[in-house]
């Protein structure tokens, strides 16, 4: 059978990927294009009329100071959260592959936060920060705990970061565990005989060999942090004084609460472009590191 004809290729592709392509296009690509079209209209989200207005939504998006503030805030939040998530996940992974007793139990435990949905998770943590910590602070007379962290600008940001670390560290831990396990024992043994200490062998051997784990974890955490919405909504709802509104939440409010649907959609597209650029940059830098390692 000739495997190089167009019809063979088409048949094979349709057989294995045809349905996928159809569903993917129908659910993601077509709505994306339609959404792009909507950014050129002044639709209010409710009306049957969708008047064409050209680029004016992009102009108002660029002039929307609150949006750029939210985006800047999202960048700061993401930068801190991404670093902390990965540091914690890496430490966890190291600890649960070090051969201590019950490491499977710990692996399971650290993963459990992933089993709850973002909205509920936010409400639970709000309860923890607003009530439990405050009650604890008052009982032990610890000043730093006796008022809720959620009440101050920096505190609310800190809370969002803490919850993100709590939520994602377990998942990223699994990827790093996989990375640790893929570094063969022989190599480490050889290093030990050559006189490497534990710390040296982690820095000099394990980490360089785990670049692909880092690339994957960073990609996942960066995209998730940039698009954070659920936890933002249920944990802080933008408070105090709209100082914790992240980009996705601003987009949602702009489109639905303030009823500037086209502007909201345009701002969402800008967010998409920022995410895409950061994602691509990070992956290509990672790939280079991998090659040189």
């Amino acid at each position: 059978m000739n495997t190089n004809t167009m019809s063979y290729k088409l048949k094979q592709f349709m057989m294995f990927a045809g349905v996928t392509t159809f569903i993917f296009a129908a659910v993601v690509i077509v709505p994306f294009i339609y959404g792009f079209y909507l950014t050129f209209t002044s639709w209010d989200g409710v009306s049957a009329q969708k008047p064409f207005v050209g680029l004016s939504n992009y102009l108002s998006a660029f002039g929307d100071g609150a949006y750029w503030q939210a985006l800047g805030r999202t960048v700061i939040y993401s930068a801190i959260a991404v670093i902390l998530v990965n540091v914690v996940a890496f430490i966890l992974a190291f600890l649960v592959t070090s051969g201590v007793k019950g490491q499977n139990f710990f692996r399971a435990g650290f993963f459990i936060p992933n089993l709850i949905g973002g909205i509920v998770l936010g409400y639970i943590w709000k309860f923890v920060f607003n009530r439990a910590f405050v009650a604890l602070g008052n009982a032990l007379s610890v000043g730093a705990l006796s008022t809720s962290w959620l009440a101050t600008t920096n505190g609310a940001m800190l809370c969002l970061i803490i919850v993100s670390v709590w939520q994602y560290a377990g998942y990223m831990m699994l990827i790093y565990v996989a990375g640790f396990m893929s570094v063969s024992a022989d190599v480490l043994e050889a290093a030990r005989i050559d006189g490497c200490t534990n710390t040296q062998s982690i820095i000099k051997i394990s980490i360089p060999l785990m670049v692909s784990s880092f690339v994957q974890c960073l990609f996942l955490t960066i995209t998730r942090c940039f698009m954070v919405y659920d936890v933002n909504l249920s944990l802080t709802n933008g408070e105090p004084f709209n100082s914790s509104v992240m980009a996705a939440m601003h987009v949602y409010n702009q489109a639905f609460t303030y009823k500037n649907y086209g502007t909201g959609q345009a701002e969402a597209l800008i967010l998409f472009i920022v995410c895409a650029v950061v994602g691509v940059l990070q992956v290509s830098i990672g790939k280079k590191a991998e090659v040189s390692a």
Partner: protein
Amino acid sequence: MDDLNERAARNRKIKHAVFMVLLIVLFASFIFPFLLVLINVFKTKGDINSNPLALVGSHGFTLKNFPEAMKKMNFWRSFGNSMIVTVSSTVITILLASMTAYVIVRNKWKACGALFGMMIASMVIPFQVLMIPLVSLYGGTLGVLNSRITLIFMHVGFSLSMATFMFHGAIHTNVPIALEEAATIDGCTKWQTYWQIVFPLLKPTIATVAIIDAMAFWNDYLLPSLVLGRKELYTIPIATQIFYGTYSTDIGLVMAALLLAMLPILILYMFLQRYIVEGVTSGAVK
């Protein structure tokens, strides 16, 4: 020599003890919110407010948050709906994504590259971008909202990218091409080779994708809330939205609902747990 071994053994013991303490501290901080939930779910609303740390509230131990939450969220019906949606979406995603990943890994065709590239790019599309277009296309133009099939279709559509990406990694690293060549020589078609040789080898990744997607589908709120506008179709997360509105939060009911909703996914996790690390491994490398 003996002495040296002994010292090494003692050092290792000390190291393990330190690690253990660290692990326990970290573990405690990870589990702390769940403990609070467990303590407070058996209290009345007033007692939760007045002292969230007390083991038993001043109104005593109460179970009433559970039946009340179950009644208000119509638990069994929502549970059934969530089950149907989650199981169907997960199974279909796994079948389709693994097939797609296979054809992409094994062939350097332009169509494969284009599809895979678009899938990767789509992973950074914020859902808000697609929300209204989805609703107005599927509801306004096609009129197919208010159906579980539409929801399953969309769930699959949104999760295919990530799943294909993970299977892509797994097939790339863990499926030796020699096995397939042998099968081809034995007269197997590509289709037979895939189901008889490749698919069974993907077990760890299947388990991983299953738990990750099942979790996402089970907990998803935004998409089902847009698609399912009829009560008899509500999934658990939509049925519980009544507990946390714009104006008030009934934290006791939220906690009860959380525990009720978490159980099935926890059980699934226990079953699949031993595969998961393996699964992530094969997806992660390369």
